[in-house]
């Protein structure tokens, strides 16, 4: 921790970065912290309780400006950063990535390849809660699944915390805000909510890195992260990518293979 704080203070002091996005103690759990001077780096912490995906901030222009910044990144954040690189949203000259490895050593990354190599050591694991709900869903028939999700969706009030918390939802105007035509009804109602979440899942195919930020952010406890995570896992072998390991090979839905499955096509 001291190493991290020291390095962060030095980076700000010598002007190599203008901002460091990290974590501080919050009122209930650690929360994001924005250090613009060496003094504030004393509040920096970095441990397993730090679950906010900080990658969500690095695409916010009003926050990061035009200067080079640094971010302390968990594995989830690193995965998101890789995907953001794939989607041309980041520039290696403008971002320094800091993390603390399993041995407690401070690591620094500048390039996509460095992060990619580091992330490759970590397998994407399925959480207990995720497994529990998945097993529950797998035991359902179609009608039951529909009822289950419709029940869940009826709680959604479209606060879009899922969207706001997701590092990959960086569009300046989301499809739900497009009104010519109005693709997705903007008011909260079970079907309009269902349309939103199906749409979100489609937009995440081959992009989601399973950080779970959407599910964590949902104030009404809908396990929405499950949808995108399950899609990620299920589609990975189908489309030939490694879950949680974004590679610069085009998006799953913007590329194709000659022998993609098509038994469902008559």
């Amino acid at each position: 921790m001291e190493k991290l704080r020291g390095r962060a203070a030095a980076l700000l002091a010598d002007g190599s970065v203008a901002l460091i996005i990290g974590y501080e103690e919050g009122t209930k759990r650690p929360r994001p912290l924005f250090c613009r001077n060496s003094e504030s780096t004393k509040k920096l912490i970095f441990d397993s309780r730090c679950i906010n995906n900080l990658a969500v901030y690095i695409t916010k222009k009003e926050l990061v400006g035009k200067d080079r910044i640094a971010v302390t990144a968990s594995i989830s954040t690193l995965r998101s950063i890789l995907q953001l690189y794939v989607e041309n949203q980041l520039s290696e000259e403008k971002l320094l990535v800091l993390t603390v490895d399993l041995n407690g050593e401070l690591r620094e990354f500048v390039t996509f390849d460095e992060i990619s190599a580091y992330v490759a050591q970590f397998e994407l694991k399925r959480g207990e809660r995720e497994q529990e709900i998945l097993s529950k869903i797998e035991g359902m028939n179609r009608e039951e699944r529909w009822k289950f999700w419709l029940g869940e969706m009826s709680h959604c009030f479209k606060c879009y915390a899922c969207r706001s918390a997701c590092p990959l939802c960086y569009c300046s105007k989301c499809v739900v805000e497009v009104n010519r035509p109005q693709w997705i009804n903007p008011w909260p109602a079970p079907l309009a909510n269902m349309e939103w979440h199906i749409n979100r899942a489609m937009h995440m195919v081959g992009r989601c890195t399973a950080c779970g930020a959407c599910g964590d952010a949902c104030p009404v406890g809908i396990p929405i992260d499950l949808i995108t995570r399950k899609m990620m896992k299920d589609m990975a072998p189908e489309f030939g990518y490694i879950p949680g390991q974004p590679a610069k090979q085009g998006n799953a839905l913007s590329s194709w293979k000659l022998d993609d499955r098509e038994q469902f096509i008559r």
Partner: protein
Amino acid sequence: MSKIGVFICHCGENISATVDVERVSKEIGGMEGVAHAIDYKYMCSDPGQTFIKEAVKKYDLDGVVVGACSPRMHEPTFRRACAESGLNPYLCEMANLREHCSWVHEKSEETTDKAIDLVKMLVEKVKKNKPLDSIKVPVTKRALVIGGGIAGIQASLDIANTGHQVILIEKDPSIGGHMSQLSETFPTLDCSQCILTPRMVEVAQHPNIKLYTYAELESLEGFIGNFTAKIRLKAKSVNYSTCTGCGACIQKCPVKKIPSEFNAGLGTRTAIYVPFPQAVPNKPVIDRVNCNYYKRGACKICEKTCQVGSIEWDKEDEIITEQVGAVVLATGFDVKGADFFPEYGYGKFKDVLTGLQFERLASASGPTFGEIRRPSDGAIPKKIVFIACAGSRDPAKGIPYCSKICCMYTAKHAMLYQHKVHDGESTVFYMDIRAGGKNYEEFVRRAIEEDTVNYIRGRVARVYEKNGKLIVKGVDTLLGGEQVEIEADMVVLATAGVANCGSEQLAQKLHVSYDPYHFFAEAHPKLKPVETNTAGIFLAGACQAPKDIPETVGMASGAAVKVAALFSNDQLVREPVVAVVNRLAPPLYSTCVGCFMCETACPYNAIEHEEIKGRDGSLIRTIARVNQGLCQGCGTCVAFCRSKSIDIQGYTNEQVYAEVMSLLND
């Protein structure tokens, strides 16, 4: 409020026999935004079209729907009629009441109901239509031809003869390509050089052709009509403006044992060399890899020999930029060689040759001056075996396709051998004889019947050496799989034709697609065989797939006509059914966030990066822009774009949404 005119056609009785057309026009007439609705016996007839034209003016229509036959049939007709009456043609749509309704359903209420729905759908669509202008792209009337083989030569001459400028680049020191290496050509057995050389000279002397030999494409940017080509002129080390081509330097060059590429390795050349006597241009280049001076820093004998001081030791590669409007790819093919056939002993036994090497042996300009002699001892082979399909049609070798030319040239080789070695005995092992083509089958029959070439249908398992003879072991499948063993003096492999090395990189530079074997891909296998998916780039010859000379020449002329057609107008006019990225007022500029996933989705490389800059010139954002010259209007990017920032004219989100909704709103 829209003012849509709806015109329902009876199509004689084709529609009215099953659809109550009067009810259709009456009900549609009551729709919101429909100003005028009629039905008529033949809408496509002159009086029918006049109805439309008059209605457009009388009711000041801002949209027209014609309920008639398939739009694939008469859409252009009715759009033209609208245009003639002053309505933008893209404000006219057709409802398919014939092929999709009256012809496929019995006469019933439901059939009429469906017809009404179909018209309603198009009325709702047309309400959202926007006037469109056809896209005009300026055209630079200069073509770049890449590759100076027979394909490139033919394409260049044909384009140049239509009066347009051509830049021809060739990576070797001379144009001519593989055709210049051939001895005689099937099925006429005329001398390859004799028919090719005049064309090579014509290229060099043509006022409209600028020839760059020893040159390669560095990069190609831009789009149809407007390409910028960067060309690398490799350093020849000889100043061509002063060099007289006397050849004295070549005589004196001490490095003499370099295998000659022209002779397929059967002969040698010097370090400063002209690839072959009829080369165009007939001036030497220095092969820096093998030259003593470049290797060790000393020699310079050629410089001393040169009377005109043309040797330029310090000359560097030069990159020139040319603006062109079209590109013809004519980079040809290669043949598989060496280690590819360990079981046939190629590369191990000197007297196992490729077909191309045999061509050199049989050629009067070749290392043996046209006499068939063994490379090992110079003896005239008395027994020779030709193995067809060496590599081709062999999935195990990774080449499942047929190389197409081997059957014919093998027959030719056997024939040439019999003509040159009268007491010789030749055998051809083949899988099938593919002799489709004018006079081809007759040619093969002649080889078998008149020149007594022994054809055995079967594959060769192994070739090995024993007592100075090459033992060819195979089976004769026509004799029930009987083992055949021939003691041969020479074996010739009809090796597979493969894509030129580096073709993949070249394809990527040009953004053209290629097949799994790295041959360039045509835009459509049947209907667009010389086009690529990138508008303005055309294919000629064996770079697309192995093919023989007449086919190559035909394709080259085809590509030339495509180029000439493109150059026949100052502007290229295209249907405006293309994708567009939205642009908004600052500070948004566009809803595009520049993820460029559309770039990977686009089959035409039509997505460009557009930099949005502030007044001070600083970069604000990079967003996608569709190059309207390249976009073909498939709309894949539209369905893919998450923020709906791309839309496709003629099938906009609003239009298709309105159509779908109209079918379901009760």
